[in-house]
């Protein structure tokens, strides 16, 4: 039922102000990203000298910068590695999280309270950077792809939301499957998982986006550039200001392309996220909501 409400002048003034403010906040969130995209397709010669907000490509729109960075070998190495890490991490974390969630939701598993305790305690206290590094070193994982995957294999938060989701499935389903002769793994992956696919999808999305953006473990555990994820090369380009050495024929124009190529690299590294963003953002919202329900 819509309420009839009298709007006084103060209320109207507030509403107008509020609508404008919300628009301004949205613009502030959006403009830096837009600025980078527009700068990346601007005329190479003009970008360096311009210090204002770039709302529309400067000069003649061009894709020269993109042509230039395709000749930068490390971008391709980074892309390949990152895609591998994303897929591998989703597989590892996905499988282990489902198994852990299943285990912790089984009432017939008599140690589930102890196991829950063991798992949640790690949220409260952790060993710290150096001891973790030493463990990984001792295991011989340093400078291998495993160092990028195994230490991040499980997250308490994901296990808890998976457990909550699995616990809401009636036990009778499992029992009837068992009577039909289904084994434990068949039950988990053929019966339980399809019923929790919304939660599972949210977890996989969180893992994938976090992995795409991850760089710190690479800094700690990897020396070999061939194993670097994309974000490590982005760090070299953007933070350490390493010049992008392209093998393309525009080599002699390094000075002009220096800044433009940076913008192009940002777009190239962020585009996959921005492309899937409209589709995944509603899942993220539901993910935050699932997480907020106390497990």
């Amino acid at each position: 039922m819509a309420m009839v409400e009298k709007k006084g002048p103060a209320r109207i003034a507030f509403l107008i102000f509020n609508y404008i403010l919300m628009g301004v906040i949205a613009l502030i969130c959006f403009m830096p990203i837009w600025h980078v995209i527009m700068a990346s397709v601007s005329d190479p010669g003009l970008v360096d000298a311009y210090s204002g907000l770039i709302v529309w490509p400067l000069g003649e729109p061009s894709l020269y910068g993109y042509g230039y960075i395709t000749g930068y070998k490390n971008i391709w190495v980074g892309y390949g590695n990152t895609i591998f890490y994303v897929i591998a991490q989703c597989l590892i974390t996905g499988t282990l999280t489902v198994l852990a969630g299943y285990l912790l939701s089984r009432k017939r598993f008599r140690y589930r309270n102890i196991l829950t305790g063991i798992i949640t305690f790690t949220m409260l206290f952790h060993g710290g950077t150096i001891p973790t590094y030493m463990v990984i070193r001792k295991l011989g994982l340093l400078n291998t792809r495993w160092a990028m995957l195994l230490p991040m294999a499980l997250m308490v938060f994901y296990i808890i939301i998976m457990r909550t989701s699995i616990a809401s499935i009636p036990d009778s389903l499992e029992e009837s499957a068992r009577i039909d002769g289904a084994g434990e793994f068949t039950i988990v992956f053929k019966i339980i998982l399809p019923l929790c696919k919304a939660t599972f999808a949210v977890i996989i999305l969180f893992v994938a986006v976090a992995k795409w953006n991850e760089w710190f473990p690479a800094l700690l555990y990897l020396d070999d550039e061939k194993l670097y994820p994309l974000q490590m090369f982005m760090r070299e380009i953007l933070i350490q200001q390493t010049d992008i050495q392209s093998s393309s024929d525009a080599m002699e124009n390094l000075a002009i392309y220096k800044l433009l190529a940076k913008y192009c690299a940002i777009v190239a590294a962020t585009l996959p996220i921005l492309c899937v963003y409209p589709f995944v953002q509603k899942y993220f919202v539901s993910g935050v909501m699932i997480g907020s329900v106390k497990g």
Partner: protein
Amino acid sequence: MSFFRNVATDFRRNKVLYILCIPILAWYAIFCYAPMVGVVMAFQNFNPVKGISGSPWVGFKHFVDFFTGNYAWRVIRNTFVISFYDLIFNFPAPIIFALLLNEVKNKYYKKVVQTISYMPYFISMVVMCGIIVDFTKSGGLISSIVAMLTGTEARNLLGDASCYRAIYIGTNIWQGVGYGSIIYLAALSSVDQELYEAATIDGAGRWKQTLHITLPGISSTIIIMLIMKMGMMLAVGSEKTLLLYSPATYETADVISTLVYRKGFEDYNYGFSTAVGLFNSVVNTTFLLITNWLSRKYSETSLF
């Protein structure tokens, strides 16, 4: 003996569950509990070749060195000050944003603003810091605006120790305000609408309604978020700091976690680094427990 027979029967019946348990337990043992044992390195002159059993014990030497050294005051102060600013500015921002957005009654406008405001959250830390570096360099967008407003010459703001914290906190808000508001918007939508109708009949204005209905309605969400925030109070993002700081800004930017990184991975002083990290972890955990206890005592809302 009946205990063992009992376990044996249970094992036979639920063998697969026991097997499933192994990888999970093994992972936690190796990647969480082994490092916890590893903190004893804080009391050693740790040498990775000799390992924990072979390295000489030095007692509390590293802690004494840390607290009497040149950097303890600097990193502890910076960590507290940055955390404190983050708490005052960055914690209420999503709440205020959610409250204001909740007043927007046009569904489409609200949806568009919401969707755009989450966007910065998904940009990687490295890229975001790259954009910050670019905008704050002399001649960059933000530097130019600041120069115009203050009438000074454009300079590299990020290299200026007096601007560092403002940039750090400001960009935190920029990146987190939309995403952080999701949970409050959900809490707001679950506030009983009849309360507002009743309040209107009683003659309460909008402001009064916000104060007496809306805020109490979302207070438990606010408290939970506050406890979590307090628990991470001193875990000032080492990733962001490592990307943004430079020797020129160490004075205001260097925090405990970045000192841990430098001592461990640049000076290879593992024992000292572990000691500083342990100090940070203990303070963090204490903060979390105290906040949780206070909150349980005074508001009956708590994490555990």
